[in-house]
C-alpha cells in the first residue's frame, strides 16, 4: 500500500510564513525540537497548556501557530 501523500501547507509561525508537511501541531513542534510539555501553544486562537496532547490538533493551510516557552525564574 503506497504511503499517504503529505500536502504542503503554509502557516504563520511565530510571526513569519513557513511551509510544512507536518499534519499536526505536535508533529510540527517535534520537527523543530520544541518540547510541548514546556510551552504554551496557540493555534488559530485556541490555547493549549504545557503538556496538552497536540497530536490530534490538525495543521491547516493559512493557520497561525505560536508558542511561548515556560522556563524557571521568579
Amino acid at each position, binding site marked *: 500500500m503506497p504511503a499517504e501523500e503529505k500536502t504542503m501547507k503554509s502557516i504563520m509561525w511565530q510571526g513569519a510564513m513557513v511551509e510544512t508537511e507536518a499534519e499536526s501541531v505536535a508533529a510540527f513542534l517535534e520537527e523543530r525540537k520544541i518540547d510541548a*510539555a*514546556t510551552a*504554551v501553544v*496557540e493555534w488559530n*486562537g*485556541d*490555547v493549549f*497548556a*504545557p*503538556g496538552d496532547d497536540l497530536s490530534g490538533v490538525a495543521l491547516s493551510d493559512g493557520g497561525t501557530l*505560536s508558542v*511561548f*516557552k*515556560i*522556563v*524557571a*525564574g*521568579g
Partner: protein
Amino acid sequence: MTNTYLTEKERGVLSAARVGVAGAGGLGSNAAAHLVRAGVRRIVMADFDAVSESNLNRQFYFRDQIGRPKVEALAENLRRIEPDLELASHCVRLDETNMPAIFAGCDVVIEAFDKAESKTAFLRADFGGIPRVCASGIAGWGRSAAIGVRRFGRTLWIVGDGESDINRGLAPQSARVGIAAAMQANVALSLLLGAEP
C-alpha cells in the same frame, strides 16, 4: 494612602477589585507592592515558603524578616504602604488542584512562581476563565527590551522573553525580575481599568 493621580472612579474600580498572587517571591512580592501602591486593596496571596537570606537580592522583604512565612511578612510590608487592606494569606504549597479554589472570585491572578513545574501547574489549572498573567524568561541582566507581553487567547498574558532560564545558569536578579513583576502588575491594572495590556 490615596493614589491622588487617579480619578475617583478609577480608585473605586481598583479598591473593589480582588487580585490573586500565586507565589510571594521575586515576582509576587514586588507585583503585590505595585498593585497596592496603585490602589488595589483586596489581594489573595499564597506561598508555602519562608523568607531566606538568598531572597533579599530581589524580593520585597527585609533582613529582620528572615525565617518568617513569606505571606505573613509580605502582608506586614504591604500594610506599611496601606494599612487598610483586605488580605487573604494562604501559607500553602500551590498545585494544579488547589489553585482554582484558592483564587476563586479573583478578577485577575498573577502567576509568580520560580520553578517551571509550578508555572506549568498554574497554566494547566482550570481557573474558569479568570484572566491570568504569567511570567517566563526573566533571569539574568541586560536585554531589558527583550521582556515583552504576549497575549494568548482571551484570558492569558505572559510577560518575559521565554528564554532566560535560571536553570541555564542565569541568576535571578532584582532589576530584571523587578521589570517583569512591574509589567505583570501593569497588565493586571490595565485589565482592571480597561486599557491595552
